[in-house]
């Protein structure tokens, strides 16, 4: 593995959650998702109960990956914002750094302009938090203090139990 596994800690998760709640409120949006570029859901805010969040995360990442592929064909580095307009709901997708995707779903109670403005502010804050996480992981890996107990003792029996 490439050593760039994504790790999320309690403390940073709370900070991220606070930012998402703030963005949810300020942008007047319905739902907000934070997704890893590989399709893993990291966090969400708003009315998520009716939505298959795992599928949404994977498809969004596929969407960003395909758009990134198109960008490279055209000689662009990346298209950092995608916008899908529907009859009722709209989706605003943007990249934070090179790793994280911010998805905002909103309807007529908000507007594209407002969402763009608020997303820009939130992206800066979220970018900083992910920077902190990266530094923390590097530090802990360097010191060898990363919580070893989960993996150190994984046995064949554990794996057999998963497939029972």
């Amino acid at each position, binding site marked *: *593995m490439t050593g760039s596994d994504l790790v999320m800690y309690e403390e940073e998760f709370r900070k991220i959650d606070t930012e998402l709640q703030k963005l949810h409120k300020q942008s007047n949006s319905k739902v907000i998702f934070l997704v*890893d570029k590989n399709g893993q859901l990291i966090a969400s805010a708003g009315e998520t109960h009716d939505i298959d969040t*795992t599928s949404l995360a994977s498809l969004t990442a596929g969407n960003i990956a395909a758009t990134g592929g198109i960008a490279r064909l055209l000689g662009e580095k990346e298209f950092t914002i995608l916008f899908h307009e529907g009859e009722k709901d709209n989706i605003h997708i943007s990249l934070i750094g090179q790793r994280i995707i911010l998805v905002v779903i909103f309807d007529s109670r908000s507007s594209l302009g407002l969402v763009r403005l608020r997303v820009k502010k939130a992206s800066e804050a979220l970018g900083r938090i992910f920077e902190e996480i990266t530094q923390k992981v590097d530090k802990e890996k360097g010191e060898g203090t990363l919580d070893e107990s989960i993996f150190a003792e*994984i046995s064949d029996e554990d794996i057999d139990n*998963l497939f029972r």
Partner: protein
Amino acid sequence: MSFINYSSREINCKIVYYGPGLCGKTTNLQYVYRRTNPDQKGKLISLATETERTLFFDFLPLALGDIRGFKIRFHLYTVPGQVFYAASRKLILKGVDGVVFVADSQIERMDSNIESLDDLKINLAEQGYDLEKLPYIIQYNKRDLPNVVPVEDMDKLLNPRKVPWFEGVAVTGKGVFETLKAVARQVLFELKKHY
């Protein structure tokens, strides 16, 4: 590139099923989907053409259980096997933790198997991965058909690294869970090496 979430106590890993067109990648996922408890699986998403050929990918999230209080989740993906979807295949390999190569055992598909395996190595290399080092399992699929190549010969042809392999008949489920379990095992033991 797994996602280890200490906050929600989850570990997410990505497994990609690779192989030539019509070798049975989607069929593997469909069988896993059918045979998994509803509370352990999400929706099986297939981005396919009208003729049910995979266009972009299939996706199946599985939450199989816990290890030391951490929920272990596997995200299974297939790639589109047809040669001209090369650009899409490359994208799906991003962040992969383990690969299953599904080979078609029919004698006339041996060239396609070799071509697909070469394609896999190239696409992995472009993402900075080395097939020699990645958790990797081979499934020799379609063993129920009359015109198949002996497994020993296929192994000589497709498996120089001598990774674990399984005979499969994905439509009936033969070898499907054995394959998945083997790759899951390798992925988790790889994590153990790194943390």
